[in-house]
């Protein structure tokens, strides 16, 4: 069930999610962000590389299936580590937890840590998202 993120307690573990980076999804993302560099690199190396930010964005989307950010929420900061390059067709499993929850002025300051791993359990991505949510 979709929950308002500000109602969650610090330490809350989000439900594990997974998604497949299929060709249609990746192509739609690359077209949307007009990334010309990644296709060139992929062609030069003979690999179907996925833009690392696509992996991050789709990991966030999978998390959003459980939580709702109310209108007026502000994306304050983002940390990401791309552990290894990911190819089209790979399945990514995500886990995330609420690592920080405080109040500042009329906002909740909330941080979500997330990790993405491939089918063998090897880490491919880690990150931390900080948002300010109106109280």
């Amino acid at each position, binding site marked *: 069930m979709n929950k308002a993120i500000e109602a969650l307690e610090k330490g809350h573990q989000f439900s594990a999610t997974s998604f497949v980076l299929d060709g249609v999804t990746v192509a739609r993302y690359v077209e949307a962000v007009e990334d010309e560099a990644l296709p060139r690199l992929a062609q030069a190396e003979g690999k179907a590389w996925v833009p690392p*930010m696509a992996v991050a*964005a789709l990991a966030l989307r999978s998390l959003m299936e459980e939580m709702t950010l109310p209108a007026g*929420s502000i*994306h*304050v900061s983002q940390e990401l580590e*791309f552990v290894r390059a990911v190819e089209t067709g790979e399945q990514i499993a995500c886990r995330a937890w609420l690592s920080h929850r405080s109040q500042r002025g009329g906002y909740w300051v909330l941080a979500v840590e997330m990790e993405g791993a491939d089918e063998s359990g090897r880490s491919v991505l880690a990150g931390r998202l900080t948002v300010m949510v109106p109280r």
Partner: protein
Amino acid sequence: MSQEAVGKERWVTGAELPSLAKTLSQEKIDRYARASGDFNPIHVDPAFAAQTPFGGTIAHGMLLLAYLSEMLTVAFGRAWLTGGRLKIRFKGAARSHETVTIGGHVQRVQEGHEGRRLWCDVECLNQRSEVLVAGQVEVKL
């Protein structure tokens, strides 16, 4: 010296990263919403966004980071995809009609047993030179 080695040698302290400019539009923001699944009305609903302090729709922060990632792919190739790290803050909003420019420079270089590690300051500016995104990127070459 190989082409790859020459590429690595160019990254010294103070070296400028290749800049990248993108002009936003509501169509591009809507396309990103469909690709990412983020349909927050501040991005895709002009009537709603007009009532907010922004006075109109703004681009997704992750769209600006996608532009940043493209610039870093141009600069560092696979090294960005494998082991790249970023830590940024969103300092301003990109309006739906603005042109944003991504750039940066090498702030520090460290040579080690595992190769050369770079720390770069990066930013995204709008056409009024207001900083929308600022932060640091780390790449191992």
